């Protein structure tokens, strides 16, 4: 925990983002970051014009190294939980491989998040080398993600990769994270944080799938167990039309999410479901950092902050590369 406090001071501040937002291009962002933790990793970047793709890999790489550095020094009971929590990188990699398989494309292994050796609990290589989507999912049959194999029939009915991705997220929380919570110091705060993330991802997934006209029954089968929401609230959200979902959310403890959710659903507005959820999680994590500075929840909050920083930097350099205005990039990041 002490280490997490120390590492937290290395994270970028709002002023850092403001300074980088004013930069002209990815080079100025790269130059700015040379002074901090990113410096050693950025030394290999092209001096003239570092691409957003290259920089994004550097940011992801530092995120993974920051997180797993703490896992290595954590006590046994905490380490199990942290390892389970960090399976989110593995889940993201699995999603990327399955997306490529779904479209019959070859997986770009360079685009996967680099998970340190020993923590790769799924044979990603075998998944990537599978001849078909079904075969790739089949490689999960002997892993803890075997429940995803059941998603194939629903996937085949709708042919949406989002369905399999929802199953992966569900397996991540139900099989990896929740069971690892037992016996953790500071469990209430951590349970609250995990629960909030589950609920928000649930709302995002339900809204997204309902917007894709997936049936109420299929959506309910895909949703996670409600954490901080009641079963009734979750049933009301999953049964509502996409347009009515914000009203249903407004009646829950996540009422502050209703308006941004409404904006995300309106076609004329740029707001996105991904960012709405990210921002809400970030806002709640900030509050944990203040309230639970002396508990193990702080470590989890640090992980989330590090992840937010990584996402923000990726957004920043990508925005600079595609020539977005400063305000538009500002709207894409969470500070």
């Amino acid at each position, binding site marked *: 925990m002490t280490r997490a406090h120390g590492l937290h001071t290395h994270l970028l501040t709002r002023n850092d983002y403001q300074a980088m937002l004013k930069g002209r291009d990815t080079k100025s962002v790269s130059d700015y970051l040379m002074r901090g933790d990113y410096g050693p990793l950025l030394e290999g970047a092209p001096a003239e014009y570092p691409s*957003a*793709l290259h920089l*994004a*890999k550097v940011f*992801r790489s530092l995120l993974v190294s920051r997180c797993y550095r703490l896992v290595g020094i954590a006590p046994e009971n905490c380490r199990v939980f942290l390892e389970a929590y960090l399976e989110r990188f593995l889940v993201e990699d699995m*999603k*990327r491989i399955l*997306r*490529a398989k*779904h*479209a019959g*494309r070859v997986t*770009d292994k360079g*685009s996967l998040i680099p998970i340190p050796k020993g923590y790769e609990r799924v044979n990603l290589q075998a998944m990537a080398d599978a001849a078909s989507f079904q075969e790739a999912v089949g490689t999960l049959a002997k892993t803890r993600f075997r429940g995803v194999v059941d998603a194939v029939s629903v996937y085949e009915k*709708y*042919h*949406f*990769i*989002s369905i399999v*991705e929802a199953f992966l997220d569900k397996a991540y929380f139900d099989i990896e994270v929740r069971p690892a919570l037992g016996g953790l110091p500071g469990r209430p705060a951590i349970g609250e944080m995990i629960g909030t993330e589950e609920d928000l991802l649930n709302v*995002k997934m339900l*809204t*997204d799938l309902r*917007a*894709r*006209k997936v049936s109420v029954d299929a959506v309910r089968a895909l949703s996670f167990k409600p954490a901080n929401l009641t079963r009734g609230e979750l049933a009301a959200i999953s049964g509502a039309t996409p347009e009515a979902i914000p009203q249903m959310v407004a009646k829950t403890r996540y009422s502050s999410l209703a308006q941004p959710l409404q904006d*995300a659903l309106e*076609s004329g507005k*740029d707001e*996105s*479901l*991904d*960012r709405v959820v990210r921002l809400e999680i970030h806002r709640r994590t900030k509050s944990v950092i203040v309230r639970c500075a002396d508990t193990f929840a702080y470590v989890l909050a640090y992980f989330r902050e590090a992840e937010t920083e990584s*996402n923000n930097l*990726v*957004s*920043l350099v*990508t*925005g600079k*590369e*595609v*020539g*977005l205005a400063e305000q*538009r*990039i500002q*709207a*894409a990041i969470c500070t």
Partner: protein
Amino acid sequence: MSVERVAATKGALQKAREQLEFIERGKDVLRMKRDQLAGELNRLLGELGRRSKVEQLFREAYESVGYAYAVLGYDSFASAASAVDAIEVRALPTSMMGVVMPEVELTKKTSVYQVPSPTMMKAVAKLGEALEKAIEVAVVEAKVERLALELMSTNRKVNAIEQVVIPRYKAMIRYIEEKLSEQALQEFFETKRMRDIARVARERPQT
């Protein structure tokens, strides 16, 4: 064919008249074709106005894609995009007054539902709409280009027939008619003179 080289015979005159009639009928057909092509071209030119709307759609789609890129990052965006099937089109050539014109049928649209990321859905919806409209405008532009070329060619043919071929045939017919008239007059005088000589010879007392 040079007028001076034409044989001034009744057969040639008959043939030239028949050819002139045929050419005038051809000219009428070409004029009708020209009018039809011009009408179609005018109709399509109205549709070309949609190009600016398509450009506006692309600008909006670019903004939306840029935002989605920024939210997701390049690798997540590319990964999500890899799950989307490419659109498929089929080109169907059709004929209008002999002009081969393209028709493009969109056989497979991009389904926004295939996009795994909700952030990308709006961008994909806008981009898909812009792409569909762009294909429609491209078809119209290709048609306009081909119709305009054919119209120019038809116009040149009609002008050439009106200004060169028909006047030349008319001149040829006039020339043959004049020649035939001269020949007829000459024959008349020769006959009359022969008749006079014969009459004088008959009336002269035999010695």
